[in-house]
C-alpha cells in the first residue's frame, strides 16, 4: 500500500514487550505443502513474527536441525509455542526447553483444556503465565475473549494478550464480535493480537478495523490452494484493516443518503409523469 508506506511517521509501529515488530501479521510455520512454500509464504506475508514449536527428536530423523536452519534463514523473529500442553506443568517445562533451543524468551503460551475443541484452559493458563513471567519469559497467552481472564493475565505480568477469533483451525472468523469489541474497549492500551480461527482476509481486516493490534494465523494460509498468494492477501488485508482503523471508518447508517449531489439534478421539479 504505497500511501500507507509513504506515511511511516503516521503509523506507530507495533511494540510488543518493548520490541518494535515490523508487521502486524504473525504467521505459523506448520501445515504447508513443503518447507519451500512455507518460506515463500513467510516472505510474501512480510510476517513480523513466525511461530514454531518443540517436538520429540528421534536419533534417525534428527529433523530439528534442518528446520531450525530454514527458520534462521528467514531473518524473522521467532516465537515458540506450547501447543498441545494440557497442564501448566507441561507448558512450563515446554517453554523452558523452547527458550533454550530458540534462544528467545518470547513464548506463545497455550494450555489446552481439551483435545476436541483445543479451547484455552483459562485456569491453567493464568497459573502457567504467572510461573513463566516469574522465570523471566515474555508471555503471549492464547486466550478467549473472557474479560476477567484477561485481567488476571495482565496481573500475572502478560503485557500482550492473544484472544481467539474462533477455535483453532476452524477458519470461522470472529465468532463473537460483540465480546471482542468489549475486550478491545476494556484494554485500550494492551496490545491485543487475534489468534486462531481466522479463515479469510476479510476476517483479518474486520479484526483490525475493530482496533486489534495484529493477527496471528496459520491454517488459512498453509491450507490455501496457493499459500504464497494467500499470504500476500492476508498481508494486504491486515494493512487495509489497520489503515482503515487509523483513517476513521464512516458510521453505519440505517437510511440511504445520496452520494451524488441532489442540488442541480436535471429535470428536478418537472412533471415526471
Amino acid at each position, binding site marked *: 500500500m504505497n500511501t500507507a508506506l509513504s506515511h511511516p511517521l503516521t503509523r506507530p509501529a507495533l511494540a510488543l514487550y518493548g520490541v518494535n515488530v515490523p508487521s502486524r501479521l504473525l504467521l*505459523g510455520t506448520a501445515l504447508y505443502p513443503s518447507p519451500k512454500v512455507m518460506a515463500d509464504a513467510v516472505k510474501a506475508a512480510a510476517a513480523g513474527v513466525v511461530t*514454531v*514449536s*518443540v517436538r520429540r527428536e528421534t*536419533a534417525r530423523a534428527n*529433523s530439528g536441525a534442518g528446520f531450525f536452519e530454514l527458520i534462521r534463514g528467514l531473518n524473522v523473529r521467532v516465537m515458540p509455542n506450547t501447543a498441545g500442553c494440557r497442564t501448566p506443568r507441561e507448558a512450563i517445562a515446554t517453554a*523452558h*526447553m523452547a527458550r533454550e533451543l530458540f534462544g528467545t524468551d518470547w513464548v506463545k503460551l497455550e494450555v489446552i483444556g481439551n483435545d476436541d475443541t483445543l479451547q484455552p484452559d483459562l485456569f491453567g493458563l493464568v497459573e502457567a503465565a504467572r510461573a513463566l513471567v516469574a522465570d523471566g519469559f515474555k508471555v503471549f497467552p492464547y486466550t478467549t475473549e473472557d474479560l476477567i481472564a484477561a485481567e488476571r493475565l495482565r496481573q500475572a505480568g502478560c503485557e500482550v494478550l492473544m484472544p481467539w477469533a474462533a477455535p483453532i483451525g476452524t477458519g470461522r472468523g470472529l465468532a463473537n464480535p460483540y465480546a471482542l469489541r468489549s475486550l478491545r474497549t476494556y484494554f485500550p492500551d494492551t496490545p491485543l493480537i487475534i489468534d486462531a480461527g481466522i479463515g479469510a482476509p476479510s476476517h483479518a481486516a474486520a479484526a483490525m478495523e475493530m482496533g486489534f493490534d495484529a493477527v496471528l494465523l*496459520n491454517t488459512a494460509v498453509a491450507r490455501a490452494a496457493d499459500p504464497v498468494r494467500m499470504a500476500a492477501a492476508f498481508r494486504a488485508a491486515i494493512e487495509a484493516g489497520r489503515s482503515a482503523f487509523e483513517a476513521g471508518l464512516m458510521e453505519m447508517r440505517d437510511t440511504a443518503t445520496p452520494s451524488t449531489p441532489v442540488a442541480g439534478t436535471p429535470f428536478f421539479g418537472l412533471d415526471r409523469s
Partner: protein
Amino acid sequence: MELKVFVNGEPTLTSAATLAELVAQFGFAEAGVATALNGDFVPRTARQARRLVGDDQVEIVSPRQGG
C-alpha cells in the same frame, strides 16, 4: 550395568550414567536438543550433573513447525 529409562515415552535400556551421556549416546548434538526429566526442564548445562535412575522419564526435543 544397564538402566531402564523412558526416552520420549519409549522404554529404553541404557548404560548412560547421566542425562548428558544419554543425549550423546543417541547421537544428538548437545545444543540441538533440549531436555526434561520427570516433567521438569533440565538445562543443557545441568545435564552432566544429572545422574539417571531407573524408570526416569526423559524428554528430548528439537525445533519444529508450529502454529
